[in-house]
């Protein structure tokens, strides 16, 4: 099996698994130290960690552990020991290190283990020989789980709690208890039958009976634990979604942080202009609200409950804040924004940013006028201007994007410029008839 290059996401992996010869290889072996995974864990994250380290598919590793556990319980013991000894991702040390310092935990584990040993000794005295083969792994499992329970960080304790749920679930509410009881009875009967067939199988009989026994045991386990497995799977999905949401929230916090900081800086610079400070604070408040409650990213004009004049002010503030070039904005009249006017504002913003970036002018002016039949926005600078015939390609691209934006909505763009004469971009957007100015309130 040759390692193959790292694949894309999960979906690609499944496709490859179906169609490729390197069936269970997901990605090349990792190079870092062996760590238990926090991201992709069902129990302690041992399987996921091993998978990441070896390049094997995580489900293959899991199946290996489960099969080993079914046959001799040594699989389970190995898992528990690995859980104890392998540090989790990002953790300082392993749980065993902490457990060594946990005297009461050690005592408890030793006590439980010795109790088990006693039970096993009694069992072997009663010639239930099959039990003694399970003895050592069982002792290791019980002791190990006890130590993990006492010393693992809270998130891993939560995992243990979830794993222990079906056992604790027996004592829960009446309806689910009845169903659980039915399940337990069915499972017990099946398990008894299966174990009976397994243990009473004689060499002279065909292996058929043993196989049937194994199937019954598996069925019993499935009946007993199936619903709970389903729930774990569901919980995992929910948990993953919660994590994604948390990341989004962190991203949001960062963005809001940035915009708030920027506004505060602007406010400091204009401390002697109370009117502007109020405007800034208002704009920031609006932006924060839109971001927190309506999910609109700061700086986007889309979907915001703005009027045209407020939109122009927003452009002014943002461009000033981002490029530190003063923008003079004058608006006459006002109206609510529709999609056409949002496109107009987006084009105006681009023209303004263009002027600020390229013209070299110390100040850029925006004039927006709302008339009954149309809305016009003029962006003017007294910068170096340019020869429209010899536009550098990067700037041409921007001009074209302004043009395209306006043309799609039935607006027009006129650019007047000449070298040394500054530039004026005139944007006009027709308004549907009857759409008068909103009430000033």
């Amino acid at each position, binding site marked *: 099996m040759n390692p193959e290059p790292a694949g894309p996401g999960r979906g690609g992996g499944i496709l490859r698994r179906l169609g490729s010869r390197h069936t269970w290889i997901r990605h090349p072996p990792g190079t870092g130290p062996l760590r238990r995974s926090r991201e992709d864990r069902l129990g302690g994250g041992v399987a996921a960690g091993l998978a990441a380290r070896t390049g094997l598919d995580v489900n293959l590793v899991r199946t290996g552990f489960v099969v080993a556990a079914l046959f001799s319980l040594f699989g389970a013991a190995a898992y528990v020991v690995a859980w104890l000894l392998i540090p989790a991702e990002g953790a300082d040390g392993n749980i065993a290190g902490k457990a060594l310092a946990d005297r009461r935990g050690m005592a408890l584990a030793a006590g439980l283990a010795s109790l088990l040993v006693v039970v096993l000794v009694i069992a072997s005295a009663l010639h239930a020989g099959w039990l003694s083969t399970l003895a050592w792994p069982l002792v290791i499992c019980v002791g190990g789980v006890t130590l993990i329970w006492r010393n693992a960080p809270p998130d891993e304790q939560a995992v243990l709690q979830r794993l222990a749920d079906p056992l604790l679930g027996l004592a829960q509410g009446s309806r689910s208890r009845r169903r659980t009881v039915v399940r337990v009875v069915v499972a017990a009967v099946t398990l008894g039958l299966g174990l009976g067939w397994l243990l009473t199988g004689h060499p002279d009989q065909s292996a058929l009976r043993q196989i049937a026994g194994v199937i019954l045991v598996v069925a019993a386990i499935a009946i007993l634990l199936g619903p709970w497995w389903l729930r774990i799977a569901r919980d995992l999905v929910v948990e993953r979604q919660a994590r994604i949401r948390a990341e989004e929230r962190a991203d949001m916090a960062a963005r809001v942080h940035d915009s708030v900081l920027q506004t505060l800086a602007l406010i400091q610079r204009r401390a*002697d202009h109370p009117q*502007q400070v109020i405007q800034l604070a208002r704009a920031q408040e609006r932006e924060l609200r839109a971001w927190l409650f309506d999910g609109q990213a700061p700086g986007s004009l889309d979907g915001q409950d703005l009027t045209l004049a407020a939109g122009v002010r927003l452009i002014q503030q943002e461009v000033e804040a981002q490029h530190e070039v003063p923008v003079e904005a004058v608006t006459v009249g006002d109206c609510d924004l529709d999609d056409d006017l949002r496109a107009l504002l987006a084009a105006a913003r681009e023209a303004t940013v263009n002027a600020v970036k390229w013209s070299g002018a110390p100040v850029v*002016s925006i*004039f927006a*006028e709302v008339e009954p039949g149309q809305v016009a926005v003029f962006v003017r600078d*007294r910068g170096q201007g340019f020869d429209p015939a010899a536009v550098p390609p990067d700037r041409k691209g921007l001009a074209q994007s302004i043009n395209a934006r306006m043309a799609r909505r039935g607006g027009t763009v006129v650019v007047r410029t000449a070298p040394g004469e500054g530039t004026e971009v005139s944007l006009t957007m027709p308004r549907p008839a009857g759409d008068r100015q909103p009430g000033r309130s």
Partner: protein
Amino acid sequence: MTSPAGAGPGPGGRPRVVIVDDHGLFRSGVRSELGDQVEVVGEADDVTPAIAVISECLPDVVLLDVHLPGGGGQAVITALRGSQPQVRFLALSASDAPEDVIGVIRAGARGYVTKTISGPDLVDAVRRVAGGDTVFSPRLAGFVLDAFAALPADGPGVPSLDPELDQLTPREREVLRLIARGYTYKEIARELYISVKTVESHVSSVLRKLQLSTRHQLTRWATERRLA
């Protein structure tokens, strides 16, 4: 601070200026920006001292802050309009509030500039006001357009007493629009194929209308803007 009383440019044709602003720091800033292009003959930080200083110095131009603790620049103009008609006022403001700006203009200021104006532009504005011209910043032009644009929408309910005064001509509108777009008078003249003098007369006419129009819609416009 005393200097010989009397109107008209001082020695060397430098306009004589009084600065009225409640921020000492701003006053000294303006003073240094004006440099020796103008002669600063007095300063004041509030309405009452301003009236005293202006009456005493009789400057050509008063640079007047729109916002003053004791009643605003408007009060200064109103108090002096009758007794010292030859003194011209240029309003200076950091404020965006249109009602304040329009208020000062209606009281009699010959122009309005924002405090962010550059030194040379301010000197130019002072010279123009001293010479009897008007100074309209883009923002003021926007306010005026807005104020007059709001009028027809008020409907026929209020008959206009003097249509001549209550409406802008298309040409005046055009000129104001160009000012609002950031054009200088010279650029406007070139744009409209008229002389700079004609541009100036259009602007003066707008100023006159703004000051003389008795339509209460103007007041109402300002009030509504205040609420907005």
